[in-house]
């Protein structure tokens, strides 16, 4: 389980996060929802220890994030984190060189699934294919937790469908996923837990299935209630 407790972050005088707390379980998809500037990306960066917090704590399976944690948790930001001049096969080799958790068989499977060519240079790929390679580099790691920042942002409908398909596949199964997205429609039916953010705080968090069963509301219905008052 990932436990985020009282996360506070300031950029200059601006308070971006003001005491954000939530948990994300293994085997569940937790979605951080909020308008631009709500602090979603900052939360993911802070979980990965990529930006320092002013206060608060992040625990993964009861432990603070350290260098060994990166074999158990991975981050897929909204831009690819490989050198543009690399070929896809070189990017995969880089991952294989540094991560014990790299699963080449799964990577090959995803190459076929996304219909990518290993020989292609990353800089020559379309935005959709770049997003797929980015996803591949994260999902081919045998990690327990995956953080994804806007995986559907700015890509074509067919690529979005392919990426959404990944969420129902064995590539995600049994892992804990924290995802941020504007395009809630693409994955609404897949979300286990939704965390609605506003003004650097958690406004509401709920189990999507429970609220569907108990109140007959979709995630979008709850969002409408919270954000459009």
């Amino acid at each position, binding site marked *: 389980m990932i436990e985020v407790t009282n996360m506070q972050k300031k950029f200059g005088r601006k308070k971006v996060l003001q005491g954000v707390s939530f948990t994300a379980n293994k085997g569940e998809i937790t979605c951080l929802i909020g308008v631009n500037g709500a602090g979603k990306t900052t939360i993911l*960066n802070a979980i*990965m*220890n*990529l*930006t*320092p917090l002013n206060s608060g704590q992040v625990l993964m399976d009861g432990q603070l994030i350290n*260098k*060994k*944690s*990166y*074999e158990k948790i*991975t*981050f897929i*930001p909204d*831009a*690819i*984190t*490989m*050198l*543009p001049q690399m070929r896809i096969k070189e990017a995969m080799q*880089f991952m294989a*060189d*540094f*991560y*014990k958790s790299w699963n080449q068989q799964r990577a090959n499977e995803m190459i076929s699934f996304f219909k990518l060519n290993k020989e292609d240079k*990353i*800089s020559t790929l379309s935005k959709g294919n770049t997003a797929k390679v980015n996803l591949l580099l994260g999902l081919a790691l045998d990690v327990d937790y995956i953080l994804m920042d806007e995986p559907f942002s700015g890509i074509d409908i067919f690529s979005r469908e392919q990426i959404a398909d990944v969420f129902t596949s064995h590539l995600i199964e049994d892992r804990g996923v924290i995802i941020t997205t504007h395009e809630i429609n693409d994955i609404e039916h897949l979300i286990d837990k939704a965390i609605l953010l506003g003004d650097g705080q958690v406004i509401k968090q709920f189990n999507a299935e429970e609220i569907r069963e108990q109140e007959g509301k979709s995630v979008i219905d709850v969002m409408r209630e919270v954000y459009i008052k």
Partner: protein
Amino acid sequence: MSNYLKLVNFELNRFIKLYMVLIGVTIVSQLVGAVLVSRRYLKDVNQAIYEDGMSQSSFIEQFGQFSFYDFGMSLWFVGPIALSIVVLLIYVFFIWYRDWFAKNTFIYRLLTLPTARLNVYLSKATTIFLMVLGLVALQLILIPIESRVLEWMVPLDFRNDLSLDQIIEQLHVMSVLIPQSILQFIRNFGIGFMSVFIVFTAILLERSFKWKGILLGILYGAFTIGLYVLPGVLESLISPGYFYQSEKFFIAIAMVVIISSLSIWLGRLLLKYKVTV
């Protein structure tokens, strides 16, 4: 250790094309320069002796014999060295900033590798050191070859052959880059490497604290330079000539070790706790 070596290999590969260009420019410029500079001397010889009727001995008396020094002071020789120094100085900054500001933010990947972040710092520093040492080694190979070219070009009577030691001694830039004694080598390169560590840590201060970090980086640079010169300043103020040369040397080495260690330690802390993507 293995991740550190893999990172060094990776960083070397990222710079290798530009580095090969530097090596190519140095080889071509210096070899072509050796031919052209010696031909220019021979042209002067021919003009003075065959056209102006000057005798060989009076020409040598007036203009001197041709030696490596004449070539070594030319732009053909010094130019590529200066270019390499400038490129490497820029690269000390570029090696960090390109990971933040290039099209793809590679710093996310570097900082989430399952290895100590200090390895990222040390691998980048090692890359710079290897590049510098490589270019110095290239110069050590090139100088004897260029000496031979000059020997082929200029007749024995008109030239003054210098040994490698003499060439290095006479050319100031070479005497800094390739010192005559191992102790000088340690001091010169120690100061160079210490400077790289100081700049790296100043960059990380900027990356950690943004605008305030620029000021902190400048202050850190000033502080470390002050720390380095402090023993010498104190000596000259309190008791000039108090230290023997050998003592001054060991103080310099001690300051290099202290400041480098401080910079690496601070760089490690910043990378671990403060740096932001």
